[in-house]
């Protein structure tokens, strides 16, 4: 039996009408029935405070409140309805520096545009099957950023000791 997507509610935040239509069609095709749509981060914030959602697909470039600001609020705002919400950021910005910035604000997964059936379904499966622990330091709260492991050993920068809880 496949995943029962009819049991979840998904927040879809995208300002481009056609892109929003495409992502909604893809979610419906996979079986999601309950989709809350918003066309900027501010409206999405209000919507998710009204109705709890199980994960969010969020575009980066939006006006007036962009995807990064929305993720920052979800993770750190005292009024956040769910700081642990799994977030897939959908973006055509694939430059390393930009990706690192979004990751440092607490994005769970990235979905690079142009999207495909395969790429979206893979990211959703990542959220479901390989959720990462959350890390809280003085300067960061979000999914564990340590993915650069070789042979089980982390090889990236050591920040936690400097950033302190």
């Amino acid at each position, binding site marked *: *039996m*496949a*995943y*029962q*997507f009819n*049991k*979840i509610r998904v927040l879809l935040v995208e300002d*481009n009408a*056609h*892109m929003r*239509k*495409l992502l909604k*069609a*893809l979610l*419906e*095709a*996979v*079986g999601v029935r309950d989709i809350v749509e918003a066309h900027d981060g501010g409206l999405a914030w209000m919507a998710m405070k009204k109705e709890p959602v*199980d*994960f969010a697909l969020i575009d980066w*470039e939006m006006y007036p409140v962009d995807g990064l600001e929305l993720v920052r609020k979800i993770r750190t705002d005292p009024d956040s309805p769910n700081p*642990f919400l*799994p977030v897939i950021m959908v*973006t*055509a910005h694939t*430059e390393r520096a930009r990706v690192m910035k979004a990751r440092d604000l607490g994005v769970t997964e990235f979905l690079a*545009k*142009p*999207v*495909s*059936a*395969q790429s*979206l*379904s893979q990211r*959703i*499966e990542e*959220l*479901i*099957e390989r*959720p990462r*622990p*959350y*890390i*809280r*330091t*003085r300067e960061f709260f979000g999914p*564990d950023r340590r993915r650069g492991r070789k042979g089980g050993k982390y090889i990236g920068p050591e920040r*936690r*000791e400097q*950033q*302190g*809880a």
Partner: protein
Amino acid sequence: MSRGSAGTPGQKFQVLNPPNQLKAKVGNGGVDEAAIKRMEAAVQGLRGEFEAQAKTESVKLAAAAAELLREPNNIEKRQTVYMLAHELRGQGGTYGYPLITRFGDQLCRYLDASDFLDAKALVVVKAAADAIVVVINNGVAGDGGDVGRQLVAMLDKVVAQVKGEA
């Protein structure tokens, strides 16, 4: 909720393991092949709409790039060009037009690389915009065959010329 090693004396960070509520709701089994096929059909169902929209948007992009050539320091015009190209690069590949994504990406990265581009350098931006118009107006899908190769070569040549003059 498990808190990992949080609370250890001297600990400077907390590791939190919230319950996997998503998994608890959707269960097991993954995204099956039938769902993938439905998703692909959904994309195909929107292809015509994308093509019509991309024709309009690419013409706007080429016009905006021409205006930017006339006013290279106009931040608003630069942003308009960037956003039009950004949206097109984000969608072309989904509908079988990877050259739209390629040229749109080239345009955006070119603008990202420098805040100070004069009219001579912005010729690259205009050429990339024009190439996108050609791709969508002529239905140059996939790698575009000979037409695609010519467009890629044309744009590379413009970039090389601008670099040579820099």
